[in-house]
């Protein structure tokens, strides 16, 4: 059996390895959240607020994600709503606020403990549509910069990585660094079953994860 960390916990882990995630803060009350945002200049309005906790697997389906909050007043009202929506069986919850990141192109990246090859790393096209598109490539962890570059080259949808609708081409080294960082999470953190960075949005050609989900072997938490 495995457990999944909350989005906030997952983000904190992958950030330590240089995986780029959208700037974020957290708090367990509305006041704490508002103060945290005010204190952190990297979190800029408009923001997104999400209620997260280990037991909350499907934030979007439960309406626990509030997008494009333009200012502190909107954020305050969203925080009140989200905290009120928590159910007793959600356990410990917190509100995560992050800069609203916009980009037309979404990727997905992740780790998975494979029964044959051990820990593997994936890169794919499509973000939330990835399972329908199925343009994904895998490698065995650890990977080198060369391996990461070849993962990018092996995607079928190369056109998406070129200049696209006024957005610049993929900054290749940024994605290589993100993949090598993600692989390093798998090498150095114990008991990883899987990680999803989904979606990984291209902003000015650079990948930024706006959601992260880390699944651990349950024994690790006891």
């Amino acid at each position, binding site marked *: 059996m*495995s457990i*999944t960390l909350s989005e906030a916990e997952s983000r904190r882990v992958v950030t330590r390895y240089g995986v780029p995630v959208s700037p974020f803060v957290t708090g367990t009350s509305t006041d704490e959240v508002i103060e945290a945002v005010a204190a952190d200049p990297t979190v800029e309005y408009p923001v997104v607020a999400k209620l997260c906790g280990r037991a909350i697997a499907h934030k979007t389906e439960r309406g626990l994600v509030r997008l494009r909050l333009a200012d502190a007043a909107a954020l305050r009202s969203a925080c009140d709503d989200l905290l009120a929506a928590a159910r007793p069986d959600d356990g410990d919850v917190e509100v995560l606020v992050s800069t609203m990141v916009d980009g037309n192109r979404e990727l*997905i*990246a*992740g*780790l*998975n403990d*494979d029964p*044959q*090859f*051990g820990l*593997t790393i*994936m890169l*794919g096209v499509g973000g939330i549509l*990835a*399972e329908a598109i*199925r343009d*994904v*490539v*895998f*490698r*065995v962890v650890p*990977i080198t910069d*060369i*391996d990461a*570059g*070849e*993962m990018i080259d*092996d995607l079928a949808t190369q056109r998406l990585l070129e200049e696209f609708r006024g957005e610049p081409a993929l900054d290749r080294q940024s994605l290589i660094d993100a993949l090598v960082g993600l692989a390093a999470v798998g090498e150095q953190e114990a008991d990883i*079953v*899987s*990680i*999803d960075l*989904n979606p990984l949005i291209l902003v000015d050609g650079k990948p930024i994860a706006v959601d992260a*989900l880390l*699944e651990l072997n349950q024994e690790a938490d006891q």
Partner: protein
Amino acid sequence: MSHDLSALFDPKGIIITGVSNHPGKFGFVTLHNLLVSGYEGNIFPVGREPSEALGRPVLGSIDEVPEGEADMVFICTPQAVNEDLLRAAAAKGVKAAFFAAAGYREAGPDGVEAERRLVALADELGIAVAGPNGQGVVSTPSKMCAQIVAPYAPAGRIAVASQSGNFVSSFLNLAHHTGVGISRAVAAGNAAVLGIADYVEWFADDPETSVCLVYMESVDNGREMFERLKAVAERKPVVVVKGGASDAGARAAASHTGALASDDAVFDGMCRQAGLIRARDVEEAFEAAATLATQPLPAGERVVVVTTVGGWGVAAVDAMSGTRLVATPLPADLHAAIDEKLPPRWSKNNPIDMAGGETRDTVPEIMELAASHPEVDSVLFLGLGIQSNTAAMMRDGEFYPDHGLERIVGFHERQDARYAEAAAEISERTGTPVLLATELANARPDNPGPAGARSAGRMCHSSAGRAIRSLDLMTRYAQWRRARGL
């Protein structure tokens, strides 16, 4: 762990167990195949009682084999007696065994136990055990066809290790068909002791082998296999075709990544990372291996296609879509040099369509110009055999040899043989691969074009698309090497 398999592939003498004079039995067939393939070492057929088979004395016991005269035993006897036979063979100096015998893991719980004992015994005796439940081993440097089935194979530089015996036969048949030969071939059978990685590691050190060709179905201990095959791929190309690759079903998984991790996607990524050249099917695998075994590695992805007429060139360029290959625009100096050789109606771009403007020497000259140009990484010639095909109809018709037909038929046939020879010679001299493709390789294999390719030791592909596929696989492997400074 690396095994010394020299006694398996180059034995100085072979004991065959289970030999009778019944030509339907495996022991007899193996003896027959060894004799017919021209094996020059000692052969000691052993049966239940002394007799004779194929004019050879059959010994009643391994005890009668002179000590030190045989270093390999080929086991065709029932499972229950084989442990005693292996001990007796070890006492005579045997270092390797091929177990064609069945009745092991594939045969239920008793067989599983017998296989476990076999593994322990192999370890105790220090014998390299291949099989059990395998069809045999082929080694052309030793003129050895130690197999319970056909065929043998022409000599060459491809080494085969297969988890399916049938596909060993398929690869050997394709070697016969194309003329691109085999160094070693082994069916892993149940792979109780020796597995695919053990064979391929030995091939990496084998001076007779330049390309490894692997068929696999199951992947046990994938991480270890990845590390070992990667180390081999750094030294020699390893072509892999995997059966059971159609598992599109994702596993039940909490994560999107897990849901997307089909066996095939993960295996494919492992191959790319390890530098393994993954083919889609057995024919493609053999053709890639045959191309790698007989052509230099391309320095890049720029291809020039040379044709005598239009359509084939179009098909070749179409086949490049979705590959790493590029039909490179003709460099200006190459364009100018070709202008000197061809009448003005030639295509003036890539594919180089000679539009029937070639004279006696044009085809080799254009191939040479393209292959020796520094901005061209490989050349594909389409149109081999077309003159001889015209000649064949003349030769078979009622007007031959009169009306000047004999002379022109001879000219056409000499030309095609010359083109095939020139392609081989030019690629060797320039270090640029020069591939050939024509459906005549299948439809009329005796046509002097494809026949000439065979006698030059080269693969003649049966279509432009298949040649492009081999070239793409070869180019990817070259890119993998180059990226790692190999």
